[in-house]
């Protein structure tokens, strides 16, 4: 019944997966802890039960690469304040709508009369701005280097076309500073990384080479399908067993060493590197992107004067430890008790890329 689907099924081939697993079992002689950076990879690993199939000597810990999870509570509160305004059409990727602030989420703002819309691209938000010149259209620009080029492009287009009723609420973060923060932590357990495939598609992997050398860890850019993940894990195990701290690309169909220069240039033109707070982790210096001075008029935080809104996390939520690979979701005392996808305490339980949500949704042994 299932007809093969090109670019998907060859990367989900059970026979190929079985062979890779066999190879991993042969190669993994010591105990290793490997972190997959990206929430999309976490989701695929848990959904396909790859963690159940790996030998006991290998432990996968889940990284901070979930845009929804690391967007700080104060950005959510600012989004809620802006979205509730009469003149605003607030646009966002769907996942952000369910992330709770202190008392409500964007869905609740919508049901109270706010005009909150799900878009699939920031350029769709720009189209809404063109179509509604009497409204202020705001796009919630969250994410890693993967979303940054399109978000930058939306601002760039707005400038070019003179669209002034468009602005972005920016909470844009970057992977390498987070990796450094994890590796610098005194109780770090991570010995090797699967680097996030789509982030590397934009940025390339050259910038990971100094991290690999400095902290003596192998870093392997990896895709998202089961066969790709297993190939990435196998390569990381090989490098670990051979004591080689190198960056080796296992996502050649998408990633090159230099990445996508046009996308990087677009980010550069619109954004500059700034300090950013990460939800659950705290401030990481020079870990995020903010609008350059020349684009300040597209900054929703100043346009709607919400920079004075701050917020505090639930004291029960341990998502910071989960995001740094220090705690497995089911190791949190609130997991599946006070904290469920219906009543999430932290964003890792909300997003489909969040490790806690993935465990709750798919993991047989945790419930």
């Amino acid at each position, binding site marked *: *019944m*299932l*007809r093969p*689907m090109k670019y*998907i099924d060859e990367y*989900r081939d*059970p026979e190929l*997966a*079985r062979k890779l697993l066999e190879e991993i079992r042969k190669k993994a002689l010591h105990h290793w802890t490997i972190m997959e950076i990206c929430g999309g990879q976490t989701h695929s690993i*848990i*959904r*396909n*039960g*790859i963690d*159940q*199939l790996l030998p006991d000597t290998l432990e996968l810990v889940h990284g901070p690469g979930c845009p929804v999870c690391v967007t700080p509570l104060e950005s959510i509160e600012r989004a809620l304040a802006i979205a509730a305004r009469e003149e605003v059409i607030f646009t966002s990727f769907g996942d952000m709508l*369910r992330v709770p602030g202190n008392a409500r989420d964007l*869905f609740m703002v919508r049901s109270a009369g706010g005009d909150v819309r799900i*878009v*699939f691209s920031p350029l*769709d938000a720009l189209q809404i701005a063109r179509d509604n010149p009497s409204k202020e259209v705001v796009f919630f620009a969250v994410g890693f280097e993967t979303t940054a080029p399109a978000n930058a492009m939306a601002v760039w287009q707005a400038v070019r076309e003179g669209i002034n009723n468009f602005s972005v609420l920016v909470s844009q973060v970057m992977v390498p500073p987070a990796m450094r923060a994890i590796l610098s932590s005194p109780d770090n357990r991570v010995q090797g990384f699967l680097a996030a495939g789509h982030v590397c598609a934009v940025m390339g992997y050259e910038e990971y080479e100094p991290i690999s050398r400095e902290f003596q860890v192998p870093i392997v850019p990896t895709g998202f399908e*089961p066969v790709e993940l297993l190939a990435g894990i196998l390569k990381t195990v090989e490098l670990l067993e051979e004591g080689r701290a190198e960056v080796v690309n296992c996502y050649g169909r998408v990633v090159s060493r230099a990445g996508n220069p046009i996308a990087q240039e677009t980010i550069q033109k619109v954004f500059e590197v700034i300090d950013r707070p990460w939800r659950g982790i705290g401030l990481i210096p020079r870990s995020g992107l903010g609008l350059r001075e020349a684009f300040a008029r597209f900054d929703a935080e100043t346009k709607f004067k919400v920079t004075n809104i701050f917020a505090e996390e639930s004291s029960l939520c341990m998502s910071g430890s989960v995001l740094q690979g220090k705690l497995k979701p089911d190791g949190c005392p609130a997991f599946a008790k006070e904290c469920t*996808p*219906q009543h999430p305490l932290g964003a890792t339980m909300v997003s*489909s890329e969040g490790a806690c949500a993935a465990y*709750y*949704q*798919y*993991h*047989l042994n945790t*419930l």
Partner: protein
Amino acid sequence: MTIAPICPTPIMQHETVQMAHGAGGRLSQALMHRVFMPHLHNSFLDLLDDQAKLDLPSRRIAFTTDTYVVSPIFFPGSNIGELAVNGTVNDLAVGGATPLYLSAGFVLEEGLSLAELEAVVISMAEAARKAGVMIVTGDTKVVGKGQCDKLFINTAGIGIIREGVNLSCRNMKAGDSIILSGTVGDHGMAIMTSREGLSFQSRITSDCAALNGMISTILDEVPFAIHAMRDPTRGGVAATLNELASSSSIGIEIHESTIPVKSDVRGACELLGIDPLHVANEGKLVVAVAAGDAEKVLEVMRRFDPGRDAVIIGSVVDDHPGMVVMRTVYGSQRIIDLPLGEQLPRIC
């Protein structure tokens, strides 16, 4: 056969629903005679009474109601009218009833084109004819612009429960086979891909279909085989399996490799990050049958259009009561949970 003259089409196409169409006066009557009666008329409706008086051949009846608010009202492969008839017919049929009579209540938005309304009514008449049911009573209300989205339809239905049939989702037993009548996710993805804002084109069409013919043939030819039966609409096959598992307090195990998904639907789901098991269907059936009867039930289902691709997707197990677990193609297991909240807006 038409019993009343229909206005020439060009004039109809330029006409729209007015508030006065719902006021009970001349315009209300005109709407009835021009749009509804020519297509829906039957010996009950023709009396124009406030109620239908029915003689039922049995005292055990099934009674159900459902309201249809799908947007857009026309979507690839079907429309809100056909959906409103088939949905209620199916709700009766999966309870082991033979659907007989339907009511239809319409909420019309001021400004709705009468041509669109008539197209919907024609679809309802056609769907009712195909399913062998009669729409015997109805109502129309008009609300102001913006107070509803073009057209909402409520249908209620009555059917008589077949002699000796006692279907309940609590009757599943360990060892039962779980049969799915065809591909998953067609309806939901047809709606999703026809919505504004999603700028990709597809050939995905809704699977909207009445299931009563197929179900009654199964009950005729393989009596007592079926232990539980549901049509997996909102929430998709995942939600239906979870309902079955939790109401029978028993586990269900399904096999990833057996789930039939059309390649267009699969492609759209991959693109949007949606699990086809969570996507709505409107012409599919999930049944739990004694393992020994499974092949016979499959054979009957495959004779019918909505059951052409019927397959066994798993079985009922003693393990993990109340939970649905999928065996992946890699040999690992994962929970198939209920979808959380809205995935696709207004799909039925």
